[in-house]
């Protein structure tokens, strides 16, 4: 079986650190590794420079991503799971995403290349996959008050 071969050759992703306050509903270990790998590239220039703060922010983005998907209709959650199966299964990760190592060991250039290929793909399905990652990762970060100071957003005014 092709699937068995693919898995046999895979370098397994290491499980990223998780937000201890978050119980994951949709993302499994592999899904968390994928978001934790892509988010720093999607959010390059937007996350804190300081390494511990940067890594802590990524942990929160992964948790926020899961929270956002869990609030979507079950049919849409299934579509997100399909996207993550495609990205997570080593053979399709290599063929469709062009990422030949595990996500946690992929270089920034590899991941940025993947995002650009999908962003401008002639295949509308891949473009929609890019847009899904774009929307969920950016929403997860910019919903977080930690992101606001950098963009000059004062947060909501006090009314009560």
């Amino acid at each position, binding site marked *: 079986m092709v699937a068995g071969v693919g898995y046999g050759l895979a370098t397994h992703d290491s499980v990223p650190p998780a937000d201890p306050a978050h119980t994951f509903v949709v993302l499994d270990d592999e899904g968390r590794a994928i978001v934790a790998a892509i988010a720093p*590239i999607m*959010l390059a220039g937007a996350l804190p420079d300081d390494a511990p703060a940067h890594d802590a922010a990524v942990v929160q983005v992964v948790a926020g991503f899961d929270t956002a998907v869990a609030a*979507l209709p079950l049919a849409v959650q299934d579509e997100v799971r399909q996207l993550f199966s495609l990205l997570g299964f080593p053979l399709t990760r290599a063929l469709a995403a062009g990422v030949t190592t595990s996500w946690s060991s992929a270089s920034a250039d590899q991941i940025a290349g993947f*995002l650009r290929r999908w962003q401008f793909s002639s295949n509308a399905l891949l473009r929609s996959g890019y847009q899904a990652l774009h929307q969920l990762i950016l*929403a997860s970060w*910019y919903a977080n008050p930690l*992101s606001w100071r950098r963009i000059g957003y004062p947060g*909501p005014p006090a009314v*009560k």
Partner: protein
Amino acid sequence: MMIPDPIAAGLAAGWKTLDGARIDDDVHLDCDVVIVGTGAGGGTAAEVLSGAGLRVVMVEEGPLRSSRDFHMLESQAYPQLYQESAGRKTKDKAINILQGRCVGGSTTVNWTTSFRTPPATLAYWQKHFGLADYSVDALAPWFAAMEKRLHIHRWEKPPNENNAVLRRGAEKLGIATEVIHRNVDGCWNLGYCGMGCPTNAKQSMLVTTIPAALERDATLVSGARAERFLLSGDKVTGLECTALDALGVAARPYKVTVTARHYIASAGAIGSPALLLRSGVPDPNGTLGKRTFLHPVCVSGATMPHAVDGFSGAPQSIYSDHFLETQPIDGPIGFKLEVPPLHPVLAATTLCGFGDRHAEEMKDLPVTQVVIALMRDGFTEQSVGGAVELRNDGTPVLDYPITPYVWDGLRRGLDVMAQIQFAAGATAVLPVHEDAAAYSSLAQAQAAIATLPMESLRMRVVSAHVMGGCAMGADEKTSVVRPDGRHHHLENLSVFDGSVFPTSLGANPQLSIYGITARNASRLAKELAARPGAAASAPP
């Protein structure tokens, strides 16, 4: 200072409400009229019908939330108050749709912009859909009554800078603008209408018609998804609903069933056609769920040499109908110009690209100005809109192919918006498109816009106005309901919401829904209250 919360007060005083997330058994209710949906249509109908002495049950898929819950946070508002966390997509994912899902529907989260149905739209309906009674003069009293009820008036404060840029730029080019009318009373001018009004100044259904109905002993069921009408012959005999979990995502093992003399679908232009499709209502001409319109929107960002702070102040106060009024309604697609509020999540997910470039654009948020162009779809054979379909699990999805006719308008919209923004002093303009960059001169921007590929999922297209799918009309071959909202084939079913519009409007829809629902619900109330079995208490 503590803001009074009329919903909290009503609940404490004993309003009849039921939350699907909290019931622990099946529930059956009986009434004169059950209304599915509590947005502009359902809320208005509930007030009119309860006012006629009829026993009303309202069923809402979303949760009951009120000002004490509205903290002006996108992280809370989008998952709690919007369909699909404000990320509802068309079938091919090319268009993101903002639509409310909470008690009050989209009126709880809209930006308060209020227009009567434009005269050119009504004339088109009269000519093409047999809506003889839908003249400007005949509808005027209904619009006036709802304007009074919801405190709709010309916004009296100066526009925020985001809106002011649209006005200044347009006027320099000789493009007329006007001040928007808003349904607010004592507005604090905060700018967070889209996250639920924290001060109850917005006169949404949540704080007006729904409390009025509840004061008259109506029942409100929230957190319950209307699955189907039960049919027997030419009558509806019941409504079946499923209780939902607290997130409003998964079904709980409890049913809410409602029997009534009359049934009303007010679930919006995606929800109502979907409910009728799931119910298997007669559809001999295949019109149900068809001709669904979106006012597809394109977006233009500008960098200004001064603060804009588009997250602050009334989100929409200036508009231009120049590109609707200077060309025939059935010619090349026309568009309305408005601006959106600029909060971090909405801005970040709308802007294209990623990494450093996106981060730089976000860093400019306080000096960013945005104009949107809303396409008036549905008035020619090249713009027949979309179709509501059901997924395997019965949930709806809208298939809306963007036709070349619509793409043409989206491109022209980008061009016009760039002209306006540079005329107002922008130092750069960014058409929101994956292939575009920030252009520092009008010539550069226009050259780029002329060649940007008008392609799904490259050009950003969004919508906040869903209309059609249960079109009203005199001829059942081209419509779903009669001009009074009654179903062509089922005698005790009506549709009162934006789904009855046979085209888009060319204007933000809430006041059209209020006025037309008030008209049609009043006719229904008269008929039901006159029939045997009506509640004893007559309307005043």
